[in-house]
């Protein structure tokens, strides 16, 4: 008797399954998402229509934030692509980059060395070389730090369960944050940051005019500064450079091979440990660059400044499809826009909430992210 019921049920299920295509009630979820998206877009569109200049200004601010996130997100996406580890300490490497440049500029005046060494040099060139030196120094410090972290904390755990490495990463991150907060290191206070080059802003009204300090720019105009241009240029340059490294150079090919299949890559004569260290190094270098630019743009640093930008950059990397470099860039730009629009049109404190809500929704709809390739089951 039970067997006959079972067959009857199975037959009914089969009949049902043949009648419909796809899972039942799937439209409800889609309708919900589309409704939420439509309401959000409509809300922002109405606001943008009433104040288009403000909207454009928000867009520019979001772009600035997004370009910085893109620099951090690269490190997350590359490291995750190769070792499948959320490198929580990456955000703190970013913080160390910012602090290194702070000490270089404010304490030691490193950005003035060309002017001090060669007094006849034109001031523009001096500033350019000085700033580049500061940035390179920060990047170098970040590289050393990241490679040390990788060697000391992550390498021994290469074969351990992934979650062990994740907890270690959290531990490293905490160590950097709270060691940084010690009074003789960076202190736990917000520190005003002195930019190594003078800021120049412009406003747009029938052409581009410079904003003179002490003189108010006209109301309701779009303004931007040289910092924005530098951040955008640096971020895009880094993307191109990284694309070149990953696609064209030998080490880039080794990185891709290692991320695809480590044991086979090892059999092919690739030194996987060296490749992993290189990945950490290159990610840290870009995080250091991002740290300096972030500090210049927002002119205030503290020992826990890396946590939230780091997390959001990771979210951006996941959003774009983890392991994908253009994905990280696009994801970061989306995160920047989301944050800027939320701050302006919804409520400032909710910007973190919106970032994570976007992450959850994207993962539900497309678990591999926007640009991610379908995950292969690997051992």
């Amino acid at each position, binding site marked *: 008797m039970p067997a006959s019921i079972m067959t009857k049920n199975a037959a009914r299920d089969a009949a049902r399954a043949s009648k419909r295509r796809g899972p039942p*009630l799937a439209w409800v979820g889609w309708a919900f998402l589309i409704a939420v998206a439509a309401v959000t877009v409509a809300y922002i569109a109405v606001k943008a229509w009433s104040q288009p200049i403000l909207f454009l200004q928000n867009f520019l601010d979001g772009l600035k934030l997004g370009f910085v996130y893109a620099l951090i997100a690269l490190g997350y996406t590359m490291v995750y692509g190769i070792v499948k580890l959320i490198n929580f300490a990456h955000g703190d490497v970013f913080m160390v980059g910012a602090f290194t440049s702070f000490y270089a500029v404010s304490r030691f005046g490193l950005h003035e060395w060309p002017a001090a060494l060669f007094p006849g040099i034109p001031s523009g060139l001096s500033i350019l070389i000085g700033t580049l030196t500061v940035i390179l120094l920060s990047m170098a410090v970040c590289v050393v730090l990241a490679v040390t972290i990788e060697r000391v904390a992550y390498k021994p755990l290469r074969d351990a369960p992934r979650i062990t490495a994740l907890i270690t990463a959290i531990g490293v991150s905490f160590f950097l944050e709270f060691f940084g907060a010690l009074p003789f290191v960076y202190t736990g206070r917000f520190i005003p940051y002195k930019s190594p080059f003078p800021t120049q802003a412009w406003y747009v009204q029938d052409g581009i005019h410079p904003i003179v300090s002490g003189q108010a720019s006209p109301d309701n105009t779009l303004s931007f500064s040289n910092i924005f241009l530098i951040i955008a240029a640096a971020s895009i340059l880094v993307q191109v450079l990284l694309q070149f490294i990953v696609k064209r150079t030998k080490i880039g090919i080794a990185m891709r091979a290692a991320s695809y299949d480590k044991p086979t890559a090892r059999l092919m004569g690739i030194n996987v440990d060296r490749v992993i260290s290189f990945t950490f190094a290159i990610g840290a270098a870009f995080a250091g660059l991002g740290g300096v630019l972030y500090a210049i743009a927002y002119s205030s640093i503290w020992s826990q400044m890396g946590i939230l930008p780091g997390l959001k950059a990771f979210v951006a990397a996941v959003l774009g499809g983890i392991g994908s470099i253009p994905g990280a860039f696009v994801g970061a730009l989306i995160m920047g826009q989301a944050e800027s629009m939320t701050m302006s049109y919804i409520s400032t404190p909710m910007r973190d909430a919106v970032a994570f809500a976007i992450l959850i929704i994207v993962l539900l709809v497309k678990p591999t992210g926007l640009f991610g390739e379908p995950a292969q089951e690997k051992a």
Partner: protein
Amino acid sequence: MELGYLIGTVAKMGALVAWIYGLLWGLSRERKWQKALTIVAAFAVIQLVILSRVGGLALFSAFDQGLLFQAITMTMVALGLNLIYGFNGQFSLAQWGFYGIGAYCAADITYRWSNGDASGLVVAGLGVMLGAAALFGVGAFLKRKRGVPVLSAFTFYLIAIVIAGIVAARIGQPLAASMKSGFGTADAPGALASPATMQIVFFLAVVIAGAFAAEASFIFGLPVLSLGSDYFGIATLGFAIIVKTLLVNTDTILPFPEMKGGRGMIGIPKLLPFANAADGEASGFQVALGAWTPAWLWIFLFFVLALVLIRNFVRSSTGRAALAVREDEIAARAMGVDVAKNKLLVFVAGSFLAGVGGGIYAHYMGFLSPGSFDFIAGFNPLIVVVFGGLGSMTGSIVASFGWIFFLEGLLRVLLGQLGTDAPSWRLVLYPIALILLMLVRPKGLLGTVEWGFLKAEGASRIRKKAAAKREGD
């Protein structure tokens, strides 16, 4: 002085571990009266220590009691997290968020009640009950339509729970207003404002806080648990950040002016360890019998309930299924375990414990600040669970006590004596210890060792007894 304090703390710590061991051992006895006696004795020992004075000095100072209470709430949070992460393998950072939700929920209920307003209890109680009914109703509905995608199921549950919440508020507020007369005036307190009622309200508030956290975890966990393990971790971290953000804005974004947003919620009725509070704090919770107040009774009661709950959950078929899911999801699915449902159930159970722990925390602190529910503090239960050993309930309990007494108590005091800057070293030492532990002994201090009551062999002993009985017949 420092050495004396050190020895004293170590001795107290050792005594407490022995106490835990005794409690667990006694609970593992076969006969009912033995278990009952153990519970009474375990309660009485600490109660006597709290009350006793040696030469006018408290044997167990107010600071130590605070640590003890803190250790027990940490135990609950850690046990819940161990259930989620240790037994089910879901790396969750949201536990601290549910802890915060529970704390604020319970605090709001008793705060309103002590101010002559029943709306907190009535609306939250109704909301939790209607919400549970709505969730079960939708669950039954979705069960008939097999294979509904997660997103659609989430939409249904969300709509159902929002409707339940609105209905609860609509029914509850007039109901609460009609109870207003029961509170009486400040001069002539009515029946509802009596200390005895307050105790019941406290109990209900803590349970409702747990249920509220559990329902929140259901709604959050349903979509998020279907993500992979790392993504789940990040999403739960996001949840913790969102909760903190909302708690900072309780008076602006959320409609709870009494929670006072980032300034912190004050005036929560306190569970006082002593009736003759020297600092003269008035409290709705004092039912004084001489020097005795029911603070320790409540906390002990919830502690034992949490122990029994977690042990029975882990040793139930759901708990065994959870272990199977942790070891291998595909194999578990092949054995007929509904993996998604199992994960969700474990997540909800763990969050319930976090909510209860939060409810208790709110009432011995008497003050809540969103800063204490920061996601950075949210790593504490994770560190405790990892220290104690993933999948070891005993480990979580002992590590919670050790964590609170050594790191919060001892280290804070000792470093405080070394200089004003020294306490910030505390937070540098935690991560170093964590990294070293991960590198040297990733299994945690106790591995999977269990003591007495929490051991799995209880079942085999019962079976042996049944077999002996059969042979005797």
